[in-house]
């Protein structure tokens, strides 16, 4: 009997030890990065950090950085909500680029692109994406990938591969920025792990669980509408599948029951991005992925309500795309913007251009006059006056 007890105790101890020691992810994966940890100078990881430090120093002087203190502070608060311990080790860079992307370099350099901030509908969605990126950092996924690739190619080839892998279609040159973070595509297992950890951290910080699958689903829908050339650079380095979205939904269903109220943080979020949204929408519609932009704008109209600004930019997408019936579609959207009140002055100018193209000189002239009335100090006043004079 005594012998049986000893065996039971021994087995229980083994089970306890195993549960403590079993790491997440693949066997042989490095331990999680500890707060304030820097790699040993003689390690291969130190070389990787040195490389990323050098690239980060170039990022610091990029003309694309959004340096607004309020927006940067807001983002830091979200990062500290999801990981209060490690957030002091993270440097956050907001990069003005109209594509959906966020990345986390192994040295703690986090990039958040404005295209992601435009697409997130609330704080919970952004918190999930940032939590997902933090998971790649904490689990040292880049180091794992480096070690895997290094075994089969030289370090030089690795870095060439790393940067080239991120190049996709239209956003080819954007790859250089992406390369600063997720230096090349994570494995599907790493993505699943980052999904899981990102989800746990957001839920722990009280963010509404269902928002995690929502943002991936919305991005996937936009990608599919945009076609191959508009493929999201984020998906190029973060392979996303419908299976992963379904897993997140299932997790959300289970977790949502644990508490009666969760935070989506939509109002706080929209207020934080309000000063920048017009400029981000302008960049979005001019990036050339018209079908994807339409999906995005229609979604924002649905979730954030009718607004003159959103109808104006939807009109801009039609005008710029210039396919059959697009002039009529553009004009209809501009007119909706005017009916809603408080439209951007540029609505009048764009309406004038569309009417001109449709062979309606009187409406074109009136619209151009409306533009100058709304915007008497416009920098392009002289050319608009020349259009008006020609149309008289």
């Amino acid at each position, binding site marked *: 009997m005594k012998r049986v007890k000893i065996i039971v105790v021994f087995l229980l101890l083994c089970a306890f030890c195993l549960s403590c020691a079993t790491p997440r992810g693949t066997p042989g994966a490095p331990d999680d990065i500890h707060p304030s940890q820097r790699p040993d100078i003689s390690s291969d990881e130190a070389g990787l950090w040195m490389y990323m430090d050098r690239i980060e120093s*170039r990022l610091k002087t990029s003309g694309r950085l959004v340096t607004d203190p309020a927006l940067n502070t807001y983002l830091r608060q979200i990062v500290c909500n999801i990981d209060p311990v490690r957030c002091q080790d993270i440097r956050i860079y907001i990069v003005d680029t109209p594509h959906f992307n966020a990345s986390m370099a192994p040295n703690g350099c986090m990039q958040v692109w404005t295209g992601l901030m435009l697409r997130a509908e609330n704080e919970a969605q952004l918190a999930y994406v940032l939590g997902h990126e933090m998971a790649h950092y904490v689990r040292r996924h880049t180091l794992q990938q480096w070690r895997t690739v290094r075994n089969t190619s030289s370090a030089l080839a690795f870095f060439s591969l790393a940067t080239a892998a991120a190049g996709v279609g239209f956003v*080819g040159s*954007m*790859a250089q*920025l992406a390369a600063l973070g997720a230096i090349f595509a994570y494995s599907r297992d790493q993505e699943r792990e980052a999904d899981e950890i990102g989800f746990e951290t957001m839920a722990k910080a009280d963010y509404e669980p269902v928002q995690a699958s929502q943002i991936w689903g919305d991005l996937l829908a936009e990608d599919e509408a945009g076609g191959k050339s508009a493929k999201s650079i984020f998906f190029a380095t973060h392979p996303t599948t419908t299976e992963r979205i379904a897993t997140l939904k299932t997790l959300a269903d289970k977790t949502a029951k644990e508490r009666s109220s969760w935070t989506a943080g939509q109002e706080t979020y929209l207020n934080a991005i309000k000063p920048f949204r017009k400029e981000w929408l302008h960049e979005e519609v001019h990036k050339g992925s018209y079908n994807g932009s339409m999906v995005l704008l229609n979604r924002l109209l649905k979730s954030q309500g009718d607004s003159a600004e959103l109808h104006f930019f939807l009109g801009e997408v039609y005008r710029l795309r210039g396919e059959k019936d697009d002039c009529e579609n553009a004009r209809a959207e501009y007119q909706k913007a005017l009916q809603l009140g408080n439209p951007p002055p540029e609505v009048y100018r764009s309406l004038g251009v569309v009417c001109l193209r449709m062979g309606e000189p009187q409406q074109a002239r009136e619209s151009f006059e409306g533009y100058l009335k709304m915007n008497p100090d416009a920098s392009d006043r002289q050319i*608009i006056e020349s259009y008006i004079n020609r149309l008289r």
Partner: protein
Amino acid sequence: MILLLIVLLFIGGCTQYTAVPAERRAIGSLYSVKSNVAWSQADEGGMQLWTIDGPLLEALRFVTLNDGDTLFQTSDKEAKLPRFRAHMTPTEVVEFFVASLKSVSGGVDTHQLSKGMVQPAQIRAGSINAASIDVKNLRPADFGRLPGFRFDFSYLSKEGLERQGIAFGSIHEGKLLLMVYSGTREYYFDKHKQDAEAIFSSVEVVK
């Protein structure tokens, strides 16, 4: 001998410049311009590039586009670069110009990528990687005997260096005729601005 071959290969890979004397010169078949000072000229994707101190410091580019052309060329067949349309107003030409610059910009460095990267042709220079592009003062301007337009622009290069420029053009016979003078805001833009202005004023449309 090997060293000599390497040097010759290196020289062969460099852009070839020829002197542009201070005299009237045809730009394609549609117009000519006259310069008051000597410039150096290089071929850039079939377009003329003129410079005095070097294209990264200042350059004057002569762009002629047909309906459907892009300002830049790319080896990526899937890339959707903005296309010039003959029906465009000057307001839309400015949009086209800015969107084209943005479509080939985005990185903070260019030395690492070559595969799949957008390769500017009509305007091909290491400095094209623009951020914070700003356009001002779009206004009418005579392009020789043709009604034309001009606008000022500025942007930050990939190194964060401020660059400034003037674009001067017209749409004639369905073609966009555009001269683009640009240089570093510090010193070089101003240094040859008057020389560029003299060229803008000297346009004579051939047909």
